[in-house]
Protein backbone atom coordinates (compact mmCIF):
# COMPACT_ATOMS: atom_id res chain seq x y z
CA UNK A 1 0.00 0.00 0.00
CA UNK A 2 2.78 2.37 0.97
CA UNK A 3 4.64 1.63 -2.26
CA UNK A 4 1.52 2.39 -4.28
CA UNK A 5 1.14 5.75 -2.57
CA UNK A 6 4.81 6.59 -3.31
CA UNK A 7 4.28 5.77 -6.98
CA UNK A 8 1.00 7.67 -7.30
CA UNK A 9 2.38 10.71 -5.54
CA UNK A 10 5.48 10.76 -7.77
CA UNK A 11 3.51 10.35 -10.99
CA UNK A 12 0.49 12.59 -10.34
CA UNK A 13 0.59 14.64 -7.16
CA UNK A 14 4.23 15.75 -7.29
CA UNK A 15 4.69 15.39 -11.02
CA UNK A 16 8.16 16.60 -12.01
CA UNK A 17 7.07 18.73 -14.94
CA UNK A 18 3.68 20.14 -14.02
CA UNK A 19 3.89 20.30 -10.24
CA UNK A 20 7.56 20.82 -9.45
CA UNK A 21 8.20 22.57 -12.80
CA UNK A 22 11.49 20.79 -13.43
CA UNK A 23 12.66 19.73 -16.88
CA UNK A 24 10.49 22.05 -18.93
CA UNK A 25 13.19 22.44 -21.63
CA UNK A 26 12.79 18.95 -23.15
CA UNK A 27 9.06 19.15 -22.33
CA UNK A 28 8.68 21.94 -24.90
CA UNK A 29 11.63 20.99 -27.10
CA UNK A 30 11.10 17.29 -27.84
CA UNK A 31 7.31 17.08 -27.76
CA UNK A 32 6.70 17.74 -31.46
CA UNK A 33 6.34 14.05 -32.36
CA UNK A 34 5.08 11.08 -30.36
CA UNK A 35 8.07 8.85 -31.09
CA UNK A 36 10.76 11.27 -30.01
CA UNK A 37 8.72 12.19 -26.91
CA UNK A 38 8.51 8.51 -25.99
CA UNK A 39 12.24 8.02 -26.58
CA UNK A 40 13.13 11.12 -24.58
CA UNK A 41 10.82 10.06 -21.76
CA UNK A 42 12.36 6.60 -21.58
CA UNK A 43 15.91 7.99 -21.67
CA UNK A 44 15.11 10.50 -18.91
CA UNK A 45 13.37 7.81 -16.82
CA UNK A 46 16.45 5.63 -17.08
CA UNK A 47 18.86 8.44 -16.24
CA UNK A 48 16.72 9.75 -13.33
CA UNK A 49 16.34 6.30 -11.75
CA UNK A 50 20.01 5.38 -11.89
CA UNK A 51 21.40 8.82 -11.11
CA UNK A 52 19.10 9.32 -8.11
CA UNK A 53 19.98 5.86 -6.71
CA UNK A 54 23.72 6.31 -7.27
CA UNK A 55 23.51 9.81 -5.80
CA UNK A 56 21.69 8.45 -2.74
CA UNK A 57 24.35 5.76 -2.21
CA UNK A 58 27.25 8.18 -2.69
CA UNK A 59 25.66 10.78 -0.44
CA UNK A 60 24.80 8.37 2.38
CA UNK A 61 27.91 6.18 2.36
CA UNK A 62 30.65 8.51 1.11
CA UNK A 63 29.78 12.18 1.59
CA UNK A 64 28.05 11.99 4.99
CA UNK A 65 30.73 9.86 6.78
CA UNK A 66 33.49 12.14 5.48
CA UNK A 67 31.49 15.30 6.31
CA UNK A 68 31.66 16.47 2.70
CA UNK A 69 27.96 17.13 2.16
CA UNK A 70 28.79 20.57 0.74
CA UNK A 71 30.22 18.74 -2.30
CA UNK A 72 26.90 17.11 -3.17
CA UNK A 73 26.13 19.22 -6.24
CA UNK A 74 29.46 18.63 -7.96
CA UNK A 75 29.35 14.89 -7.19
CA UNK A 76 25.79 14.59 -8.53
CA UNK A 77 26.75 16.44 -11.70
CA UNK A 78 29.67 14.05 -12.17
CA UNK A 79 27.31 11.06 -11.84
CA UNK A 80 24.70 12.53 -14.19
CA UNK A 81 27.20 13.59 -16.87
CA UNK A 82 28.82 10.13 -16.94
CA UNK A 83 25.44 8.39 -17.09
CA UNK A 84 24.21 10.53 -19.96
CA UNK A 85 27.43 9.83 -21.85
CA UNK A 86 26.88 6.10 -21.38
CA UNK A 87 23.22 6.14 -22.38
CA UNK A 88 24.11 8.20 -25.45
CA UNK A 89 26.53 5.48 -26.56
CA UNK A 90 23.85 2.82 -25.93
CA UNK A 91 21.21 4.63 -28.00
CA UNK A 92 23.71 5.34 -30.81
CA UNK A 93 24.54 1.65 -30.94
CA UNK A 94 21.08 0.15 -30.66
CA UNK A 95 18.72 2.76 -32.15
CA UNK A 96 20.34 5.16 -34.64
CA UNK A 97 16.92 6.53 -35.68
CA UNK A 98 16.09 7.51 -32.09
CA UNK A 99 19.60 8.97 -31.81
CA UNK A 100 18.85 11.23 -34.75
CA UNK A 101 15.35 12.16 -33.58
CA UNK A 102 16.63 13.24 -30.15
CA UNK A 103 19.61 15.08 -31.63
CA UNK A 104 20.99 17.81 -29.43
CA UNK A 105 18.43 17.11 -26.68
CA UNK A 106 20.13 13.83 -25.79
CA UNK A 107 23.37 15.34 -24.40
CA UNK A 108 21.18 18.06 -22.92
CA UNK A 109 19.69 15.54 -20.46
CA UNK A 110 22.87 16.40 -18.54
CA UNK A 111 21.49 19.85 -17.88
CA UNK A 112 17.91 18.67 -17.41
CA UNK A 113 17.07 20.05 -13.98
CA UNK A 114 14.59 17.22 -13.35
CA UNK A 115 17.56 14.85 -13.05
CA UNK A 116 19.60 16.98 -10.66
CA UNK A 117 16.38 17.99 -8.88
CA UNK A 118 15.41 14.38 -8.15
CA UNK A 119 18.94 13.62 -6.92
CA UNK A 120 18.69 16.54 -4.51
CA UNK A 121 15.17 15.64 -3.37
CA UNK A 122 15.86 12.00 -2.46
CA UNK A 123 18.83 12.77 -0.21
CA UNK A 124 16.94 14.98 2.26
CA UNK A 125 17.07 12.26 4.91
CA UNK A 126 13.47 11.06 4.86
CA UNK A 127 14.02 8.55 2.06
CA UNK A 128 15.35 5.00 2.44
CA UNK A 129 17.22 3.52 -0.51
CA UNK A 130 14.25 1.50 -1.78
CA UNK A 131 11.97 4.50 -1.37
CA UNK A 132 14.45 6.69 -3.30
CA UNK A 133 14.72 4.08 -6.06
CA UNK A 134 10.96 3.66 -6.47
CA UNK A 135 10.24 7.36 -6.08
CA UNK A 136 12.78 8.41 -8.71
CA UNK A 137 11.64 5.70 -11.12
CA UNK A 138 8.01 6.75 -10.70
CA UNK A 139 9.00 10.39 -11.18
CA UNK A 140 10.63 9.40 -14.46
CA UNK A 141 7.41 7.64 -15.43
CA UNK A 142 5.54 10.82 -14.53
CA UNK A 143 7.83 12.74 -16.88
CA UNK A 144 7.25 10.17 -19.63
CA UNK A 145 3.47 10.21 -19.05
CA UNK A 146 3.15 13.99 -19.26
CA UNK A 147 5.53 14.51 -22.19
CA UNK A 148 3.77 11.74 -24.15
CA UNK A 149 0.28 13.17 -23.58
CA UNK A 150 1.60 16.63 -24.39
CA UNK A 151 3.09 15.45 -27.70
CA UNK A 152 -0.26 13.89 -28.69
CA UNK A 153 -2.07 17.12 -27.82
CA UNK A 154 0.47 19.13 -29.82
CA UNK A 155 -0.01 16.93 -32.87
CA UNK A 156 -3.78 17.43 -32.57
CA UNK A 157 -3.50 21.23 -32.29
CA UNK A 158 -1.39 21.30 -35.42
CA UNK A 159 -4.44 20.48 -37.53
CA UNK A 160 -6.82 22.58 -35.44
CA UNK A 161 -8.06 26.03 -36.55
CA UNK A 162 -5.83 28.00 -34.17
CA UNK A 163 -5.66 31.81 -34.63
CA UNK A 164 -2.60 32.81 -36.68
CA UNK A 165 -0.77 34.48 -33.79
CA UNK A 166 -1.18 31.49 -31.48
CA UNK A 167 0.26 28.86 -33.83
CA UNK A 168 3.22 26.78 -32.64
CA UNK A 169 4.75 27.50 -29.24
CA UNK A 170 2.04 29.90 -27.88
CA UNK A 171 -0.77 27.34 -28.15
CA UNK A 172 1.59 24.70 -26.76
CA UNK A 173 2.22 26.88 -23.69
CA UNK A 174 -1.53 27.38 -23.19
CA UNK A 175 -2.02 23.60 -23.48
CA UNK A 176 0.71 23.05 -20.89
CA UNK A 177 -0.96 25.60 -18.62
CA UNK A 178 -4.30 23.79 -18.73
CA UNK A 179 -2.53 20.46 -18.07
CA UNK A 180 -0.79 22.01 -15.05
CA UNK A 181 -4.17 23.21 -13.71
CA UNK A 182 -5.53 19.65 -13.98
CA UNK A 183 -2.47 18.22 -12.18
CA UNK A 184 -2.80 20.90 -9.50
CA UNK A 185 -6.21 19.44 -8.57
CA UNK A 186 -4.42 16.34 -7.25
CA UNK A 187 -2.60 18.42 -4.63
CA UNK A 188 -5.08 17.65 -1.83
CA UNK A 189 -5.19 13.88 -2.39
CA UNK A 190 -2.03 12.92 -0.51
Amino acid at each position, binding site marked *: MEVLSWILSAILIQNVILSRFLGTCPFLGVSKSKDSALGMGLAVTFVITISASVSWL*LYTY*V*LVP*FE*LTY*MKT*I*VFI*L*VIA*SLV*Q*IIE*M*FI*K*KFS*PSLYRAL*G*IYLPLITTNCAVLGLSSIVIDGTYTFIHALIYSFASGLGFLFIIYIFSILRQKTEGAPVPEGFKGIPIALITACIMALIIARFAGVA
Partner: protein
Amino acid sequence: MQFLWPIIILAGLGIIFGALIAVLSKVLYVQEDKRVEEVEKMLPGYNCGGCGKSGCHGLAIAIVEEGASPDYCKPIKKEQIEVIKEYLKKALEENKK
Protein backbone atom coordinates in the same frame (compact mmCIF):
# COMPACT_ATOMS: atom_id res chain seq x y z
CA MET B 1 44.83 16.01 6.51
CA GLN B 2 41.13 16.90 6.50
CA PHE B 3 41.47 19.00 3.37
CA LEU B 4 42.79 16.03 1.33
CA TRP B 5 39.57 13.98 1.51
CA PRO B 6 37.53 16.08 -0.96
CA ILE B 7 40.40 15.91 -3.45
CA ILE B 8 40.84 12.15 -3.08
CA ILE B 9 37.12 11.37 -3.28
CA LEU B 10 36.42 13.62 -6.25
CA ALA B 11 39.49 12.36 -8.12
CA GLY B 12 38.57 8.76 -7.29
CA LEU B 13 35.02 9.20 -8.59
CA GLY B 14 36.37 10.89 -11.71
CA ILE B 15 38.74 8.03 -12.38
CA ILE B 16 36.04 5.38 -11.82
CA PHE B 17 33.51 7.04 -14.12
CA GLY B 18 36.21 7.90 -16.68
CA ALA B 19 37.36 4.29 -16.83
CA LEU B 20 33.76 3.08 -17.13
CA ILE B 21 33.12 5.40 -20.08
CA ALA B 22 36.43 4.47 -21.72
CA VAL B 23 35.61 0.74 -21.52
CA LEU B 24 32.02 1.18 -22.70
CA SER B 25 33.05 3.41 -25.61
CA LYS B 26 35.22 0.55 -26.88
CA VAL B 27 32.47 -2.05 -26.34
CA LEU B 28 29.73 0.09 -27.92
CA TYR B 29 31.84 1.50 -30.77
CA VAL B 30 29.77 2.17 -33.88
CA GLN B 31 31.43 1.92 -37.27
CA GLU B 32 30.59 5.12 -39.11
CA ASP B 33 31.08 6.27 -42.68
CA LYS B 34 34.82 6.99 -42.94
CA ARG B 35 34.18 10.11 -45.00
CA VAL B 36 32.26 11.70 -42.10
CA GLU B 37 35.31 11.34 -39.91
CA GLU B 38 37.62 12.78 -42.58
CA VAL B 39 35.34 15.74 -43.33
CA GLU B 40 35.01 16.47 -39.61
CA LYS B 41 38.80 16.67 -39.37
CA MET B 42 38.84 19.23 -42.22
CA LEU B 43 36.26 21.46 -40.50
CA PRO B 44 37.58 24.01 -37.98
CA GLY B 45 36.41 21.96 -34.98
CA TYR B 46 35.15 24.90 -32.91
CA ASN B 47 31.68 23.32 -32.46
CA CYS B 48 30.28 26.86 -32.60
CA GLY B 49 26.88 25.80 -33.97
CA GLY B 50 26.87 28.64 -36.52
CA CYS B 51 25.81 26.21 -39.25
CA GLY B 52 22.61 25.31 -37.41
CA LYS B 53 23.74 21.73 -36.72
CA SER B 54 24.56 20.31 -33.31
CA GLY B 55 28.31 20.76 -33.95
CA CYS B 56 31.05 19.98 -36.44
CA HIS B 57 30.14 16.29 -36.38
CA GLY B 58 26.55 17.13 -37.28
CA LEU B 59 27.63 19.29 -40.20
CA ALA B 60 30.05 16.59 -41.42
CA ILE B 61 27.14 14.11 -41.51
CA ALA B 62 25.00 16.65 -43.40
CA ILE B 63 27.80 17.30 -45.93
CA VAL B 64 28.49 13.64 -46.61
CA GLU B 65 24.99 12.15 -46.47
CA GLU B 66 22.69 14.99 -47.49
CA GLY B 67 25.06 16.80 -49.82
CA ALA B 68 24.97 20.05 -47.83
CA SER B 69 27.51 22.67 -48.89
CA PRO B 70 30.54 23.18 -46.60
CA ASP B 71 29.99 26.96 -46.71
CA TYR B 72 27.25 26.56 -44.10
CA CYS B 73 30.26 26.67 -41.80
CA LYS B 74 30.80 30.28 -40.73
CA PRO B 75 34.40 30.29 -39.42
CA ILE B 76 35.90 28.04 -42.14
CA LYS B 77 38.62 29.43 -44.45
CA LYS B 78 37.78 29.73 -48.16
CA GLU B 79 40.63 27.43 -49.25
CA GLN B 80 39.44 24.76 -46.87
CA ILE B 81 36.01 24.64 -48.53
CA GLU B 82 37.73 23.70 -51.80
CA VAL B 83 39.77 21.04 -49.98
CA ILE B 84 36.59 19.42 -48.65
CA LYS B 85 34.87 19.53 -52.06
CA GLU B 86 37.94 17.97 -53.71
CA TYR B 87 38.05 15.26 -51.08
CA LEU B 88 34.38 14.36 -51.57
CA LYS B 89 34.84 14.21 -55.36
CA LYS B 90 37.82 11.90 -54.95
CA ALA B 91 35.96 9.66 -52.53
CA LEU B 92 33.05 9.43 -54.94
CA GLU B 93 35.33 8.46 -57.85
CA GLU B 94 37.05 5.83 -55.75
CA ASN B 95 33.67 4.42 -54.86
CA LYS B 96 32.74 4.09 -58.54
CA LYS B 97 35.89 2.12 -59.29
